[in-house]
Every structure is written in C-alpha cells, then in structure tokens.
C-alpha cells in the first residue's frame, strides 16, 4: 500500500487505548507540574480565573471563620452555598486532602466523564442518523457521519478538555468552578444515559453552586421527551429536580444557621453588588450605572443570561438537545454575572462533539484570532491599569468586550452551521432551482 493510502486509512482508524491513556497522563502531568510550581499563585490571582464566586481564598476564609464559631454568611466575603461549603470542609478537614490534590483529582475525573459523555452522544447521533437516512437527499451522502468520526470525537473532546489552557488555568488557579464543571459533566453523562433520577440530582448540585445551571432542566426534559420518547421519565426528572432543590435549600437552612446565606449566595449572583472586574459584561456596566436604573438593568441582564434564549432555542433545536445544551451553556457562560475562564473552557471542550458542523462554520479563523489576542492582551492591560497605573479601566473593558464578541460569534456560527447542515442533508448541496442559480437565505 502506498504511503498516501496508508495515511488516509490511518485517519479513519480509531486511536489506540495506549495513545489515549498516555494523552490523559500528559494532561494530568501538565496540571500537576503547574499547580506545584511558583506560577500557581500568579495564575490563581488573575481576575479572569478567580472571581468572588469561585475563589479558593474565600473558601479558606469561610472554613476558618466557621471553625472560630462565626457565621461565615454574616460578612460579605463568602458566596459559596452552605452545602458546598460543607462538602469542602469534609474533603479538606475530615479527609485531610490538600487543596491542590483535590482539584487535580476532580479535574481528572471530569476529563474521564467527558470522554464517556462524548461517546454516548456519538452513539445517539449514529442512531438518529440511521433513523433519518431515508429522508436525506441523494447527493448528501458525503455529509453523513462515518465510523471514524464516531470513534475519534470522544478522544478529541477529552483532549480539548485536557489541553485547553482555559481549563488548565482553571484547575491550577484553584477556582471552585472545577467542582461546578464536574457536577455539570456528571449531569451530562446521566442526561445522555436517560437517567431521570441521577441527572436531576447532579443538576440540582450544579444549580445550588451557581444559579444559572438551572436552565439546563429544559434540555434534560427535551432529551427524555424527544430522544428517549418517554414522557413519564421527563416528568419524573422535573419532579426530582424540584424536590432535590427544595431539600438542598432546607438542608442549607440548617447548616447555614438561618437565611443569611440566601442573600450572600443567591442574592449576590442575582443583584451583583461586588463589581470586581472579570471577563463578563456586568462589572463595568454596573460600575458606571446610575443608581436609578440599576434594578431595570439587573433584571434585563439576568433575563438575557437565563431565559431569553432558552425558550426559543429549545423550540428550534428540540431534535438535538445536546447541541442545545452546549449552546445554552455557552450563552450562560458569556452572559452570567461572574463568568470565568473555567466556564468557557468547559464548553469549548464539548465542541469536538460537533466536528461534523465545522465545515459549515465560516468564522472559525476570526474567532480563533480574537481568542488568541484577547487572552494575551487581557492580563497585560490589567497589569497596566492596576499595577503600572498607566492605562485605565477602559482598556481592560475593551478587551473583555472583544472576548465576548468572539464567544458570541462562535456560538452563533455553530448554530448556523447546524441549520445549514440540516438543509443540505435534506435537500442536497446543489444550489440550483430550475437550472437558475440560487442562494441560501434566511426568511
């Protein structure tokens, strides 16, 4: 066999298990090396990585203050839910796990879970494709996914999670988004497996940590309703989710000694009192806001982040709830009140699941370049503003805006690509009507 033919064949073959394991070990090794080096404190102090919601310094403060008998929610520093604080206390004090080891462990587990999530999704795609084959146009055979695609995507997903600098910094910077991503990954796994009990429980834990994860109940419902075609399971999932939320809140009342935690945790996420800069849009907007309009814009921004796109997108993408999940997660990560690079990194690592859409995406280069530039420029302008006193807040705000634009382009591009692919599968790639040239337009 000629060399070219062998290479072509190799592309269609799945990766060996040995390769996958060594790739995994390399990813863990990079994290291990960074987290025990002198760069850990530099990375952990960056505002892109640690926000008031996920800073481990604040968790340490909360645990210390709790050990002194003072209610951690009396002050203004701790914004972790009481249940999660209890989890950290058990992990660090009862099991004496050092914080670095804990974060490494959870991050590596997340990578493994994401591998199985992608594998399951690919299986679902395969089943769906087999079912829909009859409706596809004749000349769209080339767009149908083949065996190698199904087998390689999970590996790429795990690689995207392990080697994405955003997720690496998220883990090394000791930001508790690692735990949030772990709960989300568990939720995705159980959602794809169609488990109506465990998926809502995992989702409830994510929602207790960060309110915004609660919007994912819609894709979960759709998954059980449409893909598994089981109405009973869908409603059970809804019920279990509500019940778990209520149970966790009641448990938090007992743990957090009263309702002080509500204002500190959920009131904080919703009303945004702390204006520490981050990669989101809220901080400078509300720094420069007249007090008179503050409530109006808080409400509109929170609606924008949660429900505004959820309902229309749920209706449009009801046949592919996993894509809906990814899109909703990404939109939440862009528009939430205190985003961090860990949120973005997690969602970006899910994108290799949609490799079949990449050929329809038009703005990949633009998005990639903007990501590169803003990721490098952000810390530089932060240093100039805060340490050198030569730039001012507008520079950093501009970089944040560009970063948000890049993210928005990415998510809308993927969704457009899905629509184009659906059209091509159904009607073929020929762009001619009665022999005349035609173009694809939105109408």
């Amino acid at each position: 066999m000629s060399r070219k033919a062998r290479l072509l064949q190799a592309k269609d073959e799945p990766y060996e298990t040995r390769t996958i394991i060594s790739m995994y070990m390399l990813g863990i090794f990079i994290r291990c090396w960074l987290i025990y080096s002198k760069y850990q404190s530099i990375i952990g102090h960056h505002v892109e990585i640690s926000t008031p919601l996920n800073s481990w310094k604040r968790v340490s403060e909360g645990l210390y203050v709790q050990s002194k008998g003072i209610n951690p929610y009396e002050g203004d520093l701790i914004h972790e839910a009481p249940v999660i604080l209890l989890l950290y206390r058990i992990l660090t004090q009862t099991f004496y796990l050092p914080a670095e080891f804990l974060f490494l462990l959870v991050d590596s587990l997340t990578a493994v879970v994401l591998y199985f999530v992608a594998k399951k999704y690919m299986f679902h795609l395969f089943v769906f494709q087999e079912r829909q084959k009859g409706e596809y146009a004749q000349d769209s055979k080339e767009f149908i996914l083949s065996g190698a695609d199904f087998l390689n995507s999970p590996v790429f997903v795990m690689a995207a999670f392990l080697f994405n600098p955003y997720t690496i910094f998220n883990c090394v910077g000791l930001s508790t988004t690692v735990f949030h991503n772990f709960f989300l990954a568990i939720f995705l796994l159980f959602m794809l497996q169609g488990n109506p009990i465990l998926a809502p429980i995992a989702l409830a834990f994510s929602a207790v940590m960060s309110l915004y994860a609660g919007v994912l109940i819609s894709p979960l419902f759709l998954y059980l309703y449409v893909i598994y075609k089981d109405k009973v399971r869908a409603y059970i999932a809804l019920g279990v989710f509500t019940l778990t939320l209520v149970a966790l809140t009641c448990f938090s009342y007992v743990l957090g000694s009263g309702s002080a935690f509500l204002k500190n945790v959920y009131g904080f996420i919703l009303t945004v009192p702390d204006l520490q800069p981050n990669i989101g849009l809220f901080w400078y907007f509300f720094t420069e806001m007249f007090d008179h309009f503050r409530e109006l814009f808080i409400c509109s921004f929170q609606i924008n982040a949660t429900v505004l796109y959820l309902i229309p997108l749920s209706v449009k993408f009801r046949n592919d709830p996993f894509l809906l999940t990814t899109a909703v997660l990404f939109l939440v990560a862009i528009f939430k009140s205190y985003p961090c690079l860990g949120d973005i990194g997690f969602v970006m690592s899910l994108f290799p699941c949609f490799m079949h859409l990449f050929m329809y995406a038009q703005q990949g280069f633009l998005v990639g370049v903007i990501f590169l530039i803003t990721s490098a420029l952000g810390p530089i302008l932060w240093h100039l503003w805060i340490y050198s006193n030569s730039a001012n807040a507008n520079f950093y705000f501009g970089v944040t805006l560009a970063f948000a634009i890049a993210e928005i382009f990415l998510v809308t591009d993927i969704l457009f690509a899905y629509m184009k692919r659906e059209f091509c599968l159904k009607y073929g790639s020929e762009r001619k009507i009665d022999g005349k040239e035609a173009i694809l337009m939105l109408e």
Partner: protein
Amino acid sequence: MFHSTLTTFLLVVPLAVLTYAFDTFSEELLLKPLGNDHLYAHFQFATKWDTDPEQESFRHTHMFPRALGEIVARYNVQELHVSLTAGLWMYETWGYPIMDAAPGAELWVWFKEDTENVDKNWKELASSLSGLLCASLNFIDKTNSINPEYTFKPRGAVSSPTINSTFVRYSSLPREIVCTENLTPLKKLLPCEAKQGLGSLLNAGHIYNTRYHSMAIHMRPICRDSSCESVSLELQQSVSLVYDLLILEAKHWSFRKLFGQGVIGRCVLAETATIYVDTTNNESVPFQLKPDPDEYVTSFRGGYVHTYAKYDVQSYVMSLNANYLGKNKVVLNSPPAIYANQYITGYGQERGGIVTTIYNNHWSPLDVVFLQNIPWYVPIYLHTLKIDAGGVRIEPTRIHYIPGRQRERPYHLEVLVKLPARSITSLSIDFDYVFLKWQEYPPDANHGFYIGSAVVSTILPLARNYTGLPQDGSTISDSFNASRSGYLVQMRTESTVITLPTPDFSMPYNVICLACTVVALAFGPLHNITTKRLILIVKDNEHFIVKLKNKVVGIWTRRTSE
C-alpha cells in the same frame, strides 16, 4: 398682706439657692519640654457638678455648658468622649500624652442602660455634636461605627459591676480637618469663654502653628467622694499642643511666642487656676523661668520622680518666659515602654496588607488589646491574620471579630495578645482592593480612602514618661503622687490612606452603549436562527443594480471560458 408675701419670698429664695447643686471649675496649663526642641502644652479645663446624672434635666446649669447638657440629656448619654486632632503624637520620642487621641475626629460614647435604640441615638448624637462643634461628625453612622468589646470600658463610675457592651459605640473619621471653626465652639463651652483666664491663651493663629494639636471633650459620671455613695457629673475639656520650637524659632520660649499674648487675668469662676512647668529635666537641659515660680511641686509616681514649677494665675496680665542656659545639647531619649506603628504593605491596587508593629521595651511580657476599625471598603481576610514576634509566630489569647458587609458595616477586629518581653511584634492581615460604583468615589478620587488608626490598649506597671490622669482624677494636679497599680495607656497609631482603583468617570454613556451593542450582537443572530428558516431563493440577476454590480465585478474576475 405685703408683709406675708415678703416673708414667704425671703424664705423661698434661700431655699431655692440651697437646693441648687454645687459645681466647681478648675483650669490648668501644663508646659513640658519634650526632648530638645519640642514643647508640650496641655490645657485642662475640668468642671465637676455635684448632681445626680440620672435625674438631672439640665434646665438649670451654672458652669456646666447647657448646650452640651441638653444634647447629653436628650440622647441618654452616660459617657461622652469626642476629640478632634491633627498631627501625629510621636510616642517613640515624646512618651505618653495626658490624653490620647486618634488623628481626625474620634467619638466614643457609652449610653445609659435604659436606652432603647442605641443606633438611633448614636446617629442623632453624632449629628448634634457636629452642629455643636462645627465638625463633620454627621458622617458617623452604622457604616463606620463599631461596638468595641474589650477596648473602651467606661471611664467613669458605673452602678453595676457587669458591663453590657451593647451600649458603647466607637467611630473615627480620619479625614477630618481641625481648624478655627472647631476651636471657637470649644471656647464657648468654657465658663469664662476666652475673655479671662487660661482660655484667653487659645488663639487660633498661634495654636494651630503646631506639630500636633488636639482638642477633646470628655464627660463622665464620677464618684463624689472617696466613699462613692453618690455620683457627680464631670466635664473635662482639653487642648493639647506640641510646639516645634525650631519652626517657631523660639528656643527660648515665652507666652508671647507660643500664644501671642499673656494670660489676661484670672477667671473669676475658677476655683483653681494654675500653670505647671515640668522641670524634671532641668539638670540635663537647664532653663531659667521668669517670673520665678510660686513654688516647686514634687510628684512621686510609679517609681519615677517629676518636679513641677507651679504658678497661680493672678488677676493681672501675666506671662511666662523660659531662657535656655548653656550650649545646645542633644538629648538622648529612651523610648517608652510600649509604642506602635501602622502601615500598609503590598504594591499595585489589587491586594495589600495592613501591618501594625508594637514595640515592647518593657522587661516583662505585656498584655495588650488591639482594636482595628476597618472600613467596609477594605475587606480583610481573617485567616491571613499573623502575629509575629521576632520571627516566632504567637497565638493570640482571644480574637473578637465581626465581619463587615459592603455599604453596611465595617470590619471589627479586636485581638488580645501577650507581647513577649523586649520584642517587636507585628500583626499583619491581608485585604483586597474593592471596586466601588462610580458615584461612591469622593470628589478627589485619587486622594485615596482613609483607614482609621488602630487602638492599642495596655496597663503599664511603671509610669515612665507617663503623664496621664488617674481614673479618679480630673485635673493635672490629681496626677501628682498618684501611684496606682497600673497605668492605662491607649495608644493610637497612624491612619493610612489607600488608593482604590478608579473607573473612568467620563464614560457612563459609552459603557452602556458598548455593552448593549455586544448583547445585541448575540440577540440578532440568535433571533434570526430561532425565528427564520433557510430557504433557497433564486439569485436575482435581472435587477439593474445587480446587473451593474456583476458587470463591474466581472472586469476583474472574468475567466477565460473553457
């Protein structure tokens, strides 16, 4: 008829006079050379009113100022301590002042036990005092007041041995500036005002030409006599000044150089009016006083001997001169037993640390209470509190910590530490720089925000460099020969300034526009995706514009047809 009315009148008036409570007023001035080229001048005006503070309505006042009395009665105040200070007292070189005061304005008050709403009374009391003293004390409210647990105990007589610390409030405003408009109301509270007696020396143009000036009002109930069966009300007003003689070019000082004039007679309402000049160091730095003092007083206190030259203020104008004899000598000073400094660490405007260094020069360990009232815009992390004595980590005896909330209350930290003997102990704690809303920055945003001074309290066993009044005394003469088992010192450290990072104040409209543009950039495509569907439309090549465009573009893109 007339006869009986006259008799009744003659009987009633003496009765009215007899039922009136007796009050005394005394004024003193202490002049003490500090080291080589500083002079400490302390005015002490004490009014003691033998009335029951619980029942006094302050309707009929004699020498006690009615303006203050009405405020005290209205807000149910048991003890009032307010001071307005500018400059820093250098404990290391000057020893201990008679009264400590924090830079800026400081107010701490004990309310009576039957007060219903302490916070409401506190806020209204601060506002009334700001009107009385022409100072911006009205900025004192819940966002910068704390409830000290250990540091500020009642100075006066209390009725029960258990003290409920919910009735005390403490606040300080380090940004306050003290000037003439604060001195004038203080002078007006004196019985003789500024017309006669030592009050006439308080001339704003001269006394504000000092390195340190502090004026204070302290009101408290004290025991009427040694059996303490009844309680009197005592009011101390003081003005503390430290002159830098080199700046004044007044090495040989006199009243004219210090105050601009001599004492204009003696206040007729004063029971005692005396001037003391500390001549303890007259052997090392000799000076000659003119006129000759009336007598010399020796005070044995806490193991140390002080001699004072005493003058009774006469009814004629009098002035004091002091001539330094011999050559200029450099005096070595031994630092006092304990003193403290406070400073900020860290660089950049992201995170920093507050460090308080306490120097213990005493030969035995000392217990100190360290109080920090940190404003809400400086969030501190308690788990970073480190107490370090000479490289060795020491654990505090007790920590009392109430975390603050943004825009609601400050951070209240009280630490009880046992300082090792002859050591330098540093307490350090980390904080973050917060980002405030653009309207919360003061007009000069880059001046910075003040963190008030810490209060370090301890009870010294020795009275070296100590001039403070004993707890049961009201006048400087009460401090002579007043040896006690311990001498209370409440030092204030420096106040510090931090510059919080500022947003661009000219940008509100631009920021709203840009942020909303980005949101719209997401809304547009997502709206298109969810409400429209993809259809194939025939390319319109017949339209004139399209034909023109195709022709123009075709010039550069025509290909040879195969």
